[in-house]
Each structure stands twice: as C-alpha cells, then as structure tokens.
C-alpha cells in the first residue's frame, strides 16, 4: 500500500528571473516577476491561486526582503493559506512540503512558493554581500566569542566542518574539486547559469583561499533574483499547461546545537534524518534515484549529503565523487544546472528549480533520466535539512 501522500501533489508552475548581478529591481519586484512567470507557465488563472508561502533570502535580515506584504503587491485576494517561512536554505523544500500538507488537508489547491533576494549592490564586491550582521564593539554573552575569534560570514563554519571530514576520512581537495568541476560542466549547458566558462581541476586548485580548507571555487555564488513554484493538487495538475512534477517523498532533519557535547555536526547532517522519512514515503532507496539536485553551498555539502542519503558509506564520499559520476555522462547526474556553485544562488530554490526543469524533461542538452529526483535543501551549518523526492510519474 503506497503512502497516501505519495503523488498527492505536483509542481505545476515555475518562474525564474534573470540571475546574478541584476540591478534596478528590489527583492519584491523580482518576486513579482517570478510569480507572474510561474502563473503564466502553469496555465492557472491568477484567481485560482489560493495560497502564498514566502521566503526572504539574506535581504530578509536587512529589512529589505520580501514579506507578507507581497500578497498585496501581487493583488492576491481571499487567500486560504499565507505564511512567511524561514528555515534558512531548507525553506524551499519545506514550502513545497507545507503546501502539499495543506493541499492534502483541503486547506488550499494551488499554492505559490516564492524566494527572492537582492544582496548584491552595484559597485560593491560579491563577498561584501554575506559579511554577516552589524558588529557591535562589545557583543554580549557567549555568542560574543564568535566575533572575538573572527568568525565572520557563513564560510567559517563550513570550513570547520570540511576540515573535520578531511581529517577523519582523508577527504582531499582533488575530491572536493571533482564536485566543482562536475557542476561547472553542467553549467556550461545551462543558459541561466552565472558561470558558464569551462573549468578544470587545475583551475580549482589555483583559486584563492577564502578560509582554508575552502578555496573560492568551493564556495557558492551570490545572486540577485527570484524563483517561484506552484504546488497544486495532483488532480488539478493533470490538465494544466506543463507536465506535472509529482511529489513522491518529503522529509526534514534538524540535528541541533553544534556546541553540545557529543555533536557530530561537522560530518552528520540533517539529511540522515530526512532521508528516512522521505525515502519511506516514496517507497524508494538511494539505489532508485536517477538524478540528484542537492543543496551545494559548498563542495563539501554535496559530499556529506550523498553520504547521509546512503549513496555511499559515511566517510567514503570523497572517493565516491572523485570518478566524475556526478558530471555529464556520469552514473549519478547531480546538480545538472550547475547548482549554487556555478549556476545561481537562490538558496533551496536552486536545486528545486532545476529539479522541476529535469522532472518536466525540459533540460535540453543537459536532460538526464528523471524517474526519481532527489532534491534537497540545507541551511545553517548543516543544521536544517529539507528533502523532496520528485517524479514525472504520478505513481
């Protein structure tokens, strides 16, 4: 007996704005562009949208992010579902999950899920966009030890996680670099990708240190832009404009405080917990997955995520990715649009948008076998995880 949630909803609309150093539009205007495109793409009438879930990116913490007022900006009236959600990079997958749960409960039928961000400022460096919050000269309490020690930006804690994996398991830069090279190879086939120049392992090694052990080319891009998807009841999805991409499995995992005694936050992510729920719902295991769209804020995130989903044993992620199996022609095509490393950085909407493109069979020269797509979101420092298993087949 299949799980009742398997195939009950589908992604029916997708809108993606231009990505990268896109200036002159606020996050709200970008969000509106993406939502309009997603509605047109789906074939739904605007009046059929009865739910709106919102995720502001990093601009959400500056006061310039999208928020509940987006409903009014879009002129969406009499909604039956509305929320502004934030579980960091896992939010996009989670929005699809909560939309699916609400649809299954009869609370809504067509739910728009939108992410928008505009951290890049004309004339300022990309690195300046994610430098961290304001820095008081006397920060308070134990958290002040981070500022005193010089932990600035998201790169720091991911560098520490990567270091521990390298030390415990012998993971090396040739292996991490293989992830970056494979994703760049995919990006060369994605017209939306920000980084489309071919890249070699030598290029990777030559890229400057950001924080050892992370090179520049271990780190994701920063992008201005927006992505919207529409989640619909499967029955409504069947006769819309696009091939439906059905939700087969959903799961989350959130391991907790990395500073607590006994935590293995560096090498065991929330994916371990999410995998059990999502695979259980879908009735699948890693052997059934035909392509992966994984949250890849860093090369290492891909390695640890593959381990935690059971594609290989814990600690063997380095050798697993080194043979090129993630790239074009490989046995486990992964991040087929170039991911966040070479495509665009829309938090969890990066893997989700590419999963929808692949699920529809609209990947063009980068299209891969799409029967069962694993799509993940990850936030914090491997702290928050959301999983979706998607398929073009309803059952």
């Amino acid at each position, binding site marked *: 007996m299949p799980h009742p949630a398997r195939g009950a909803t589908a992604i029916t609309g997708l809108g993606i704005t231009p990505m990268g150093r896109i200036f002159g539009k606020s996050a709200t205007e970008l969000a509106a562009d993406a939502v309009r495109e997603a509605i047109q793409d789906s074939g739904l009438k605007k009046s059929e949208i009865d739910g709106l879930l919102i995720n502001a990116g990093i601009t959400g913490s500056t006061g310039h992010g999208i928020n509940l007022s987006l409903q009014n900006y879009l002129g969406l009236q009499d909604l039956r579902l509305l929320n502004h959600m934030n579980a960091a990079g896992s939010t996009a997958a989670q929005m699809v999950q909560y939309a699916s749960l609400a649809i299954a409960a009869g609370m809504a039928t067509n739910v728009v899920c939108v992410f928008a961000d505009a951290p890049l400022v004309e004339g300022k460096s990309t*690195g300046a966009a994610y*430098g*961290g919050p304001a*820095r*008081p*000269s*006397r*920060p*308070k*309490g*134990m*958290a*002040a*030890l*981070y*500022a*005193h*020690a*010089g*932990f*600035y*930006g998201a*790169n*720091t804690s991911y*560098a*520490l*996680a990567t*270091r*521990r994996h390298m*030390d*415990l398991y012998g993971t090396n830069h040739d292996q991490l670099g293989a992830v970056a090279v494979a994703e760049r190879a995919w990006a060369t086939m994605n017209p939306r990708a920000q980084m489309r120049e071919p890249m070699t392992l030598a290029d990777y090694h030559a890229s*400057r*240190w*950001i*924080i*050892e*052990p*992370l090179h520049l080319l271990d780190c994701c891009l920063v992008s201005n832009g927006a992505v919207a998807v529409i989640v619909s009841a499967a029955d409504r999805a069947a006769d819309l404009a696009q091939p439906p991409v059905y939700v087969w499995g959903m799961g989350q995992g959130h391991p907790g*405080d*990395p*500073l*607590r*005694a*006994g*935590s293995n936050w*560096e090498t065991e992510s929330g994916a371990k917990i999410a995998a059990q729920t999502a695979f259980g719902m879908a009735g699948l295991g890693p052997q059934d997955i035909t392509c992966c769209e994984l949250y890849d804020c860093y090369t290492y995130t891909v390695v640890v995520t593959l381990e935690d989903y059971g594609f290989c044993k814990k600690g063997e992620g380095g050798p697993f990715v080194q043979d090129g199996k993630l790239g074009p022609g490989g046995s486990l095509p992964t991040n087929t649009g170039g991911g966040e490393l070479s495509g665009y950085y829309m938090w969890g909407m990066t893997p989700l948008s590419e999963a929808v493109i692949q699920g529809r069979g609209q990947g063009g020269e980068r299209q891969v076998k799409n029967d069962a797509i694993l799509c993940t979101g990850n936030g914090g420092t491997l702290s928050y995880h959301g999983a979706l298993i998607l398929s073009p087949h309803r059952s």
Partner: protein
Amino acid sequence: MAEDAATRPLPEADEASKPFFDGAMLGKLMLMKCADCGAMRIPSRQHCDVCLSANTDWVEASGRGVVRTFGVMHRQYHPAFTVPYNLAFVELEEGPRIVTNIVGIGDADIRVGMPVVVDWERHEDVAVPNFRPA
C-alpha cells in the same frame, strides 16, 4: 592573529554568562553543570539543554581539551584582524565545545585532535579564553 587584540570586538557579559566572565578574570574556565542530570554546558542558556532543568551549578573546568576542528581565514571582514588567522572549535575535556583561536603555534602546525590548554587573553575588564598546545 590580530596585531592589536584590544581593538577586536571584546565580549561583555550578559546575565546568563556573567559567572563565566567573572571566572575568566580570575583565570578560571567556568561551565554550567545541571544540578539535576549532571550535563555540562557552555553558559549560553539558562536551562539545561538535556533535561530542561533550571537548577544549575557552576563548576570550574580543567581548561584542557582537544582541537575539534579549525580553519585558517584569508579574507578580512574586520579591520582588527590581520589575515591569515585561525579559528577553532575546542572540545573541552568535560564535553562541550568552545569557539576560540589557537595561540602559541603557527597556523600550518595546528592539527585536529591536538591537545590544548586554555590561555587567557586579558583586557582591562574582560578576559577571553584562547587555547595553546598542551
């Protein structure tokens, strides 16, 4: 490391961490120990994160630990920091981890698992725990 550590953002005690920073001025690394279940924690919260008890004892830690993991920062975000400099999580002998810098050793010689001991960085009204090779 910073050329002039005094210009770095110096911590200021809040209510939860006051005994930690009071102890620090005396060269004592203070942790919270749950009076009910015995779990040890860094004093960033008023309740035990194992059993949620609000009954707490303060105990002096040994000051010994190992480098849990570390990184070497090459990008400057704050003018008081001269790059490169190291950042580390030290796993204390008592179990909890603490955010710190490793001192008294070149960045290239730091290793995961290296035994370290607390090394206080003293300022006029606050002391901050760095760690050096044991």
